[in-house]
């Protein structure tokens, strides 16, 4: 077991290192740079001015020197300063992650509240009318693009109620009422889609479990159907659901860009989008490295828990 853990951890570190190299080089291949991208339509700089601006940002140093400075800093937790705002990348990242995590957690809660009861119902009443209706609406939830739903919601909320979610993030522990008011609607929109995915997963996983022998035994013993489901089936059914949630969490971390855009909730997704558009190298590198670390660590945990549950995997 220990060798397995060590091997997986080393793999993770290797991947992180590869990611750092790939992203460092990738951003420098992109046409343009931070100096050019920040030009206003009224600006009219000479080439010397541009060159001097680049030097100030450290963009004219040799490639390897730049990489070395950055990576040594990163290993110590210093991700450098944003080329645009001149503020430390780490601070900006943490603030955004705060918001995105809030949004992600709330979306997952919303999704679970919707998906689990409906998924169970759908599985228990398989192939009946309620099953079909539930599955149909689940797939409908998957089909409507969430950014489109967000636009519709924000436009018509403003028209009908003259209200939109307030702007300016306050974490849950500082101001719960405001935090909820701000994030509830985006969380509903994102959660709706997540609910659709989770509901299908719950349903198929529960169906699978219900077919198992030990369920048949429990039924044969005369246990009430409800007890069968609750006591025996649900627990095992939720394992793959939890996995899906874990996967979706990392998707949520980077994938809510457009909803953030529309509701003006600056999370990690829009940070990365803006950073790439403005060629803010340090910010892109820092955000991507952080994101990759989250994914690697999550995968590590998932692998380890599988290995712990299923001994065959350890000895591959």
């Amino acid at each position, binding site marked *: 077991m220990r060798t397995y853990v060590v091997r997986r951890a080393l793999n993770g570190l290797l991947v992180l290192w590869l990611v750092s190299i790939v992203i460092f080089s990738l951003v420098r291949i992109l*046409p*343009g740079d931070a*100096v*050019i*991208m*920040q*030009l*206003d*339509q*009224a*600006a*009219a*700089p*000479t*080439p010397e*001015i*541009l060159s001097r*601006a680049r030097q100030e940002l450290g963009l004219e140093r040799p490639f390897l020197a730049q990489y070395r400075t950055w990576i040594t800093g990163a290993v110590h937790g210093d991700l450098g300063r944003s080329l*645009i*705002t*001149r*503020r430390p990348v780490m601070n900006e990242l943490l*603030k*955004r992650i705060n918001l995105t995590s809030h949004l992600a957690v709330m979306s997952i809660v*919303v999704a679970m509240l*919707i998906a689990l009861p409906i998924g169970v119902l759908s599985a228990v009443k398989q192939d009946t009318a309620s099953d079909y209706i539930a599955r149909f*609406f*689940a797939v*409908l*939830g998957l089909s409507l693009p969430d950014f489109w*739903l967000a636009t*519709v919601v*924000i*436009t*018509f*909320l*403003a*028209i009908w109620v*003259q209200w939109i979610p*307030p*702007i*300016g*993030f*306050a974490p849950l522990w500082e101001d719960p009422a*405001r935090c909820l008011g701000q994030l509830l609607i985006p969380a*509903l*929109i994102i959660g*709706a889609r997540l*609910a*659709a995915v989770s509901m299908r997963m719950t349903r198929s996983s529960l169906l699978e479990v219900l077919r198992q022998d030990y369920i048949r035994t429990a039924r044969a013993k005369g246990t009430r159907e409800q007890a069968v489901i609750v006591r025996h089936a649900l627990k095992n059914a939720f394992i793959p659901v939890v996995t899906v949630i874990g996967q979706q969490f990392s998707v949520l971390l980077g994938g809510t860009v457009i909803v953030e*855009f*529309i*509701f*003006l909730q*600056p999370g990690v997704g*829009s*940070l990365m989008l*803006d950073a790439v558009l*403005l*060629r803010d190298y340090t910010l892109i590198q820092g955000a991507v490295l952080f994101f990759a670390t989250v994914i690697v660590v999550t995968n590590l945990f998932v692998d380890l828990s599988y290995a712990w549950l299923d001994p065959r995997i350890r000895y591959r």
Partner: protein
Amino acid sequence: MKTVLSSLTGTIALITFAWYPSAAAAQEKSATPGDAPGFAYAAPAFIKELDSRYPAQPPVPPSPPRYGGVLHFPATVRAFDPTAGYRPELALVWDTLTEWEATWYFPEVQRTPMIRKTLATSWEMVNPSTWIFKLRQGVKFHNRPPVNGREMTAEDVKYSYELLKDKAQYSTRAALVKTIHVVDRYTVKFELSMPDPKFYLNVVDSLSPVIVPREAVEAPGGLAENPIGTGAFMLKEFAPGEGALLVRNPNYYLKDQDGRQLPYVDAVRLFFTKDPATDTALFRARQLDVSRISTLDVLYALMKTVPDMQLYRVPSFGWGDYGVSMALDKAPYSDVRVRQALSMAINREIVAEVINRGDAALYGPFPWALAGYTKRTDYTYANLGPNYEYSPKKAKELLAAAGYPSGFDMELEWAEFQGWTFNEFVQLVARFFGDVGIRVKLKQLETSTWIAKAAGVQPFPHTLAAFSPIGAGPSFMDWVYLRYHSSFPRTINREGITDPKLDDLLTTWRLDPGEKRPAIQRAIWDHLRKNVYRITTIVPPHYRITQAYVHAGANPYCWFPGYCSYEAKTAWMTEKAPSRKFEKFAQ
């Protein structure tokens, strides 16, 4: 079942709204089209309604200004640091030597630009290359460490100009300044690299270097972490990507004409919105008090749902036009016949109709006013000449004469840019060019790449859909001299125009002390409209909307989204304004 509810509600809502505006549209169609001769403001019924409902002169508020309130408006500020980049909102924290007057009690500003004296109280031209500016006494920087409210002096002006004149954002303005001398504590002398009898126009508003204190720049973190200036507001909180909160500077030196200290509002909250739909929604929800909108379609939608909205609508001096730049150094664009043909191929009526429902003015090689045309009725095809009139037949003849009887291939580059609908413009242009035999391939660029090309930093192979290079205010130097004289680099003279006859005319203009200038300007206009170095079409007016409870002045030099945000300095809110807190950005 939220999924169900939201999708059902959304669909029903949309279907309901689908048929509502069609009735209004039908009504609009039955109105007789304008009978105005030629082009300018041939406005359908809706625009006539705008003209009467929102006269160009904003009404004077009925009562003296009220203090208090928090003003909200949208902006895009990436860094609150004049050394890192320029945005008009920086003018809330840092002042320039002078500004354009924008208060409501100077109605003349709608016709005549007036300068508001901020840090400079008077100026004097010793000779066209030497200018003396006298500074206001007793101006204090914000009372925060490390500057701690000390007085601003001539040393600060010299320091600021020397620090900022090499930064990309200020270089057009600072291009003219060679050296700055401190004459005494409150007097500064500018030595110019080129004589300019109108140099005082150069230091007006935020495109010129702002005055910053040395201690803040040299402190750890620089101005980004010590945003201290002399401005009407102090930066309290800056949340990149979200917004900023600025609070009133209690020691601001400016007073209004009745002696009341400025600013009137307690605080200003900026929202860094990215999406016009969000802007509109925020305005409806009374979260935004002032906003600028780019097209009539959006205005139309807002008028229905915010009926008590105020609109400031002013014809554009020249900012915000739709044009096409060409790579003049290579064939076929080096041939004047080809350029004339391309210009003739475009039907500017259709462009105006599509871009802004017809509410737009013809635009030539530079602002009409600089060529001596001051009345709107003068903005005609007659004064622009045949190169600007729609005649695809003549265009084809010219192309054939130039050696392209079966046309040629063109790559037209463009990008989405907030405030413009280049998307529709380039499709129209491609269609028009296609009709005369030119096969256009549209190439969409990333916005920042496009800005780089429009700024002359990167070349474009064939053509680029972009606004014309702008100047600030009514300065011929900015709009024409710098942009067309061959001695300037591509970052200033975007297409790299080298025309010896034009250079002569421009030099004559520069050397002339003043009396003959109007005639020379007209001659340059005539030369440029014949040579069509840049294809120009139309320029829509500027629209700024405010809530009924806000009184904000404005002037015609406040152009597209964001500029002249320092109107906040003289804006005030009635007691009907929503009460807002301002301890932190998150309300």
